[in-house]
């Protein structure tokens, strides 16, 4: 850069209107800079869309295609209403974890915004999808679009064959249990469209035969001698949808396939929930670096930079707890500042940093941020890298809210004794197992009336919300025999808190 003289720098037009040629030029430079920063990405497929198409994308949970379901229609109507009334701006972009990585740019964006969005989504998020261990383990970017095509067609076929109503009922019930359709520990298998089709038929038969085996009613003389000793499942199962897919006694093969589809989609989105802070932080960190570099190289004008900084600062702004705009910690703000802070600790560590973050203080910053991006999720990222300086900058404080007390208590603030506590508490706040209720399949009365029992183990005495009764009805629709939800309190006492059953059923 230093070698290039003023004359061979060709400043890129800063719009405000963009053209495809200009997009290409910007992308070329962004790509060059990103490669210098060792961002490893899936090939980009950048699509320009209108506001209305953006709302469509919102409605189908950001995917370019999805099966038909009324809930997506509701989402669409909601988005449309809010947008029309000006209560909500649309996102500037949506990016999809697929290979090639599909990013949507809104037609209305100015050239500056398009550049920002390309750096943010096509290089930031894209490299995160490709590099982070959770995405590597849980999602298969190569096959997701194919799988959605398969799912959409399969569901459409089922609708023709079995009626929209029946399909909708099953999907409703699956959606209610969607958050419990995730394997937290097992690694999911990769799926491709071809395989999926080939295996689907076989699976239908096989699954049905397995279920039939489990529910065999022909008396078995040997087992009769020792009745009721078999426990099923032998260990509690956390993946409710998986359990239903494999074991629900009366589901038809196509219904099992629907359960499977919802489960797969849920699984695909699971890593995104666990890496929101990191993912957004990483993307902001890189759009900031890339565009700043463009400016340093003299490729973009001051005007471009002002517009960029204006949007950038409003994105990474953290309102304070007493601000009317406050709605929790802004993941963009926290993530961006944490990555910037990691860079600072690497480059200019203070004594404090050397004490609190000895492993990264003074290291190569680029190596360190890549390491952090690849090997952590929000929870561990915070507990590993949140520095006392950042806690002070954010003026973080922890509040303890115990329903047994008439007051809430400030349990830690941004001071020497509080750093560790704040770090732990903030980390816990991003721990999904703390946020989602712990409900597992506990028992099935295999030899009796086939009642399915779920067990809820409350954490810190937090009860389940009233929606549980409704969800139990959905569960009953899938299981088709009595379902029960019991709660195990801290002292080990078991109490049934919800049940749903068809008492009139003769079976």
């Amino acid at each position: 850069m230093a070698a290039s003289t003023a004359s061979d720098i060709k400043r890129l037009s800063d719009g405000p209107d963009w053209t495809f040629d200009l997009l290409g030029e910007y992308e070329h430079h962004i790509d060059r800079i990103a490669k210098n920063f060792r961002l490893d990405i899936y090939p980009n497929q950048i699509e320009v869309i209108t506001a209305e198409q953006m709302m469509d994308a919102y409605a189908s949970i950001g995917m370019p295609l999805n099966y038909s379901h009324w809930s997506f229609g509701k989402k669409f109507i909601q988005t449309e209403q809010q947008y029309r009334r000006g209560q909500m701006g649309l996102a500037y972009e949506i990016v999809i974890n697929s290979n090639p990585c599909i990013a949507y740019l809104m037609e209305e964006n100015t050239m500056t915004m398009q550049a920002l969005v390309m750096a943010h989504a096509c290089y930031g998020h894209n490299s995160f999808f490709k590099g982070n261990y959770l995405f590597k383990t849980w999602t298969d970017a190569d096959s997701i679009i194919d799988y959605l095509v398969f799912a959409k067609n399969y569901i459409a076929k089922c609708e023709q064959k079995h009626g929209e109503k029946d399909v909708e009922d099953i999907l409703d019930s699956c959606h209610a249990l969607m958050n419990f359709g995730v394997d937290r520990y097992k690694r999911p298998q990769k799926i491709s469209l071809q395989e999926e089709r080939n295996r689907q038929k076989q699976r239908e038969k096989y699954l049905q035969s397995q279920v039939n085996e489990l529910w065999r009613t022909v008396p078995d003389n040997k087992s009769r001698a020792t009745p009721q000793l078999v426990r099923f499942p032998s260990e509690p199962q956390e993946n409710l949808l998986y359990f239903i897919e494999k074991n629900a006694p009366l589901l038809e093969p196509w219904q099992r396939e629907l359960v499977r589809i919802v489960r797969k989609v849920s699984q695909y989105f699971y890593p995104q929930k666990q890496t929101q802070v990191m993912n957004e932080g990483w993307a902001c960190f890189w759009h900031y670096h890339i565009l700043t570099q463009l400016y340093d190289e003299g490729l973009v004008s001051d005007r471009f930079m002002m517009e960029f900084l204006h949007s950038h600062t409003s994105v990474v702004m953290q309102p304070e707890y007493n601000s009317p705009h406050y709605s929790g910690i802004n993941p963009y703000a926290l993530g961006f500042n944490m990555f910037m802070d990691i860079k600072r600790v690497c480059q200019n560590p203070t004594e404090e940093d050397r004490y609190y973050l000895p492993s990264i203080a003074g290291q190569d910053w680029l190596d360190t941020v890549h390491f952090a991006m690849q090997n952590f999720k929000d929870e561990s990222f915070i507990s590993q890298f949140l520095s006392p300086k950042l806690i002070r900058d954010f003026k973080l404080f922890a509040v303890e809210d115990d329903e047994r007390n008439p007051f809430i208590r400030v349990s830690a603030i941004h001071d020497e004794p509080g750093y560790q506590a704040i770090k732990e508490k903030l980390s816990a706040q991003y721990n999904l197992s703390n946020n989602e209720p712990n409900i597992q399949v506990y028992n099935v009365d295999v030899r009796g009336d086939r009642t399915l029992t779920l067990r809820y183990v409350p954490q810190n005495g937090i009860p389940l919300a009233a929606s549980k009764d409704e969800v139990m009805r959905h569960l009953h629709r899938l299981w088709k025999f009595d379902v029960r939800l019991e709660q195990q309190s801290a002292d080990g006492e078991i109490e049934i808190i919800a049940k749903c059953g068809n008492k009139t059923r003769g079976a």
Partner: protein
Amino acid sequence: MAHFIDRRLNSKGKSTINRQRFLRRYKQQIKKAVSDAVGQRSVTDLESGEQVSIPTRDISEPVFHTGKGGQREAVHPGNDQFVTGDRIDRPPQGQGGPGDGEASNQGEGQDDFVFSISKDEYLDLLFDDLALPNLQKNQFDKVIDYETYRAGYQTDGVPSNLDIVRSLKGSVSRRIALTGKDKRRLRELEEELRALKADKHENTLAILELESEINALKAKIAKVPFIDTFDLRFKNYDKRPVPTSKAVMFCLMDVSGSMDQTTKDMAKRFYILLYLFLTRTYENVEVVYIRHHTQAKEVDEHEFFYSQETGGTIVSSALRLMDEIVAQRYRDANWNIYAAQASDGDNWADDSPFCKDLLLNSLLPVTRYFAYIEITERQHQSLWREYQTVEAATDNFVCKHVQSVSDIYPVFRELFARSEQTAQSGG
């Protein structure tokens, strides 16, 4: 290297199917909201759709999530006053303060889910399963109107119907067809000629020969005319009969002292419904407002609904005025005439038989449908009894009794409910 795709021209409305499914699923709730909204519209307001509001809890998608209570910890930014150990009293109504960081996002709010439906969707819901009686059997028997429509092209016609673009297309293709081979040959010869001329050797004879051949070809090509009668294409028009699409709706209302504003409002709702319903079958619907006490008068909408008169009641005056107006303006057989009469049932007793005669002899034979609603909480009087005999005698007259606002829509639905017979003939 990134790959750019312009998707802006892709079809919109990817979510249409999901939206329709949503509407269908909540049809009951939406229908209720729609029928609640009927009373608040102007009689002729047709341009707008409707804001529909249904309770959020009806459309929630339940999931397992944690409720309030228990012990929670939350970290917040921007500490400006607290030190460890500070206690903050809870705000009176549950958790409102900074301790609410983990409040559920599952939409337990009581706000209604409000959205707009388009005009067509609104009317579809409003008139779901309703049909105009007697429509099928008389619709085509008095066809008078013809409409001219484009019916392709023909090779002959008057010059004003000449389609220039089409004709020139024909010209171009004919010329290509007739000269293509020669032109190709011409290019080859010219190529040869250039080669010969570039040649250093003497080729005069060969050149001369080539040149004469070229000239012959050029002449042949030039002979093909630019335009030929063969190329000409004329727009062709044809006529076809169209079913009439004109309707007039007579609104008759008693405005004597006994009709108060609430009664009129109820009548108004009925008129709105009828008007909206008619516009679904007919392209343009004219509305004639006739109000009466002892005398009848044609008025505009505002006066019809809002001016107050006193005095006795002679219903036949309105019927006679209607008859006159029909004779003057709607004699033409392609008018479909509908009438809706609203009254509290008061009439000068001697006038009622006269009304019956007027209806049976002059009005009902020319009207498609005549609806009478009586808005009263009292005993029926002579008019009702006379009208009942009319109802028994003909099939395009109905009378219904309405007691409160909430009766209007059900009564309307009852009047136009698609009967077995119309459903069959409609199919």
